[in-house]
């Protein structure tokens, strides 16, 4: 081999190796730098007090994250409760019942739903969901900008992710397995219940966790429909203030108040850590399943 070719080859190899290493490194850098940035506020107040206090008064140095954490949990829970049954039923239908034509029709539907930007979901939510809630619930005592509105909009946003991943999981079940069930005289529905759903149960859990972590981090749409008041939401019709919305709303002005930047970085760190673990666990489960089914 002439030297020029060899040099090119070795150069390319090292360039690629460095990029691969920096990919792993980047994840660490994000985690570490968020921690370093949020350390001052943790040292000042103690992590437990920050997470359990409800009082949010940045100007007097009180940073209680509980209302934001609770709002995030409420919003994500509503989203998953609405989206999971719809997506599960649709995915089963597409996998076991629908004809090829219907399946081909659904592909772009799911693609487009997942392609619509968060801000458009937000606009849609403020035009339709928010007035709907204001008009039909609590007889006009709420503005409609509420935890409920956030949950509904988020549900629509995670549906395409759920349907896509669930269909993938159902499709990865080997045909031999379902055919064996049919040959024993099981009906389609019995096969769905006893074979497909049972076999893919770990996958369904993993996908649910994955879309839950997507819901945790969703920012713009939630920011636009949740109402953003830093108090504990006592009912689903109260305004809420999820963590990502808190970050998005206050980032510009925080530099003037001491400790504020650090507190907001802590919000980002909390999100990062939760999502790191949720994603990690569900990805590991999904990878494991993939290995088991692809012989």
């Amino acid at each position: 081999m002439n030297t020029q070719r060899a040099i090119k080859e070795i150069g390319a190899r090292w360039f690629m190796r460095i990029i691969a290493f920096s990919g792993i490194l980047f994840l660490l850098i994000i985690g570490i730098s968020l921690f370093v940035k949020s350390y001052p506020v943790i040292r000042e107040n103690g992590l437990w007090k920050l997470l359990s206090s409800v009082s949010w008064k940045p100007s007097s140095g009180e940073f209680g994250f509980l209302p934001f954490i609770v709002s995030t949990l409420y919003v994500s829970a509503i989203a998953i409760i609405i989206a999971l049954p719809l997506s599960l039923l649709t995915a089963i239908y597409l996998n076991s019942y629908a004809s090829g034509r219907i399946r081909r029709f659904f592909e772009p539907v799911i693609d487009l739903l997942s392609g619509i930007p968060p801000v458009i979901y937000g606009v849609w939510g403020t035009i339709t969901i928010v007035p709907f809630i204001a008009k039909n619930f609590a007889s006009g005592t709420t503005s409609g900008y509420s935890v409920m509105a956030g949950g509904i909009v988020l549900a629509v946003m995670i549906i395409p992710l759920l349907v896509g991943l669930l269909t993938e999981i159902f499709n990865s079940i080997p045909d031999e397995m379902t055919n064996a069930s049919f040959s024993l005289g099981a009906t389609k529905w019995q096969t769905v219940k006893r074979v497909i759903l049972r076999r893919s149960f770990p996958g369904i859990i993993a996908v649910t966790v994955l879309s839950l972590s997507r819901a945790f981090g969703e920012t713009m749409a939630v920011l636009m429909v949740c109402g953003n008041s830093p108090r504990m939401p006592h009912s689903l019709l109260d305004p809420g203030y999820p963590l990502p919305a808190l970050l998005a709303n206050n980032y510009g002005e925080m530099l003037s108040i001491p400790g504020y930047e650090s507190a907001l970085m802590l919000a980002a760190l909390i999100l990062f850590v939760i999502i790191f673990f949720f994603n990690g666990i569900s990805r590991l489960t999904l990878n494991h399943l993939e290995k088991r089914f692809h012989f």
Partner: protein
Amino acid sequence: MKRKEENIFKVIMIIASLIISGLLLFILGTIVWKGVPALSWDMITKLPGGGFYLGKEGGVLNAITGSFCIITGAVAISMIISVPLVMYLNFYLPRKSTFSAIVRFSFDILLGVPSIVYGAFGFALMIFLGMRASLGGGIITVAMLITPIMMRSFDEVTRLMPRDLSDSLLSLGSTRYEMIKVIMRQLMPGFVTATLLATGRGIGDAATVLFTAGYTDNLPGSLSQPAATLPLSIFFQLGSPVAEVQNRAYASALILTALILILSFAARHFSSKFSRNRI
């Protein structure tokens, strides 16, 4: 009895599927219905004039151009990172290497990191480097967001490719680097599809550029000047109490949706072409 249960569930499933496809129509319908009345040529071809945010004349050309500049830069950066990375994982490392599993896993996690966290991290990074909200900062942060997306879909395309081509190239005595140059031609349509989809994600994301790119009524002049973006312009206009400005937010939303739809259809077109050319 068993039939009955099956039939009931079948009806529920069909209803669920109809609801989901109905939602898409509902969302697109709402945006079109609200956006079309406020849409005009001026929206696309003019910068915001004086008093634009009070309902006077002007358009969102600043945001369209800004979004375009940011996404072009970001896509270029993440191509430079993800193409070599995917080639390395697939053609240099052995099939079941632990290192490639770790790299793929970290990119899977990066894929799940929400855009607001990238935004916050990008902002912290920019303060650290002494930069202010600017086009350059926006490009870097959006590149962070879309690189894992691109890397993952490139990886999927590459893994699907039959190994015969690469094996025969190697057996003819080419180096791996030369082999990749040939294979790239085979992979190109799939990569174009993936890039178009990632472009859509990048253009539509507001949380990453909220603090890193800033906002301005002018066209972006250089990398160190702030740049407006379409999602943020929608967000700011919608927050205005003036009805005309809100209507223009709907028109801007329609413009953004149309852009995303075009990208999505282009991506589908390329991917169907790709499946026809496959060996």
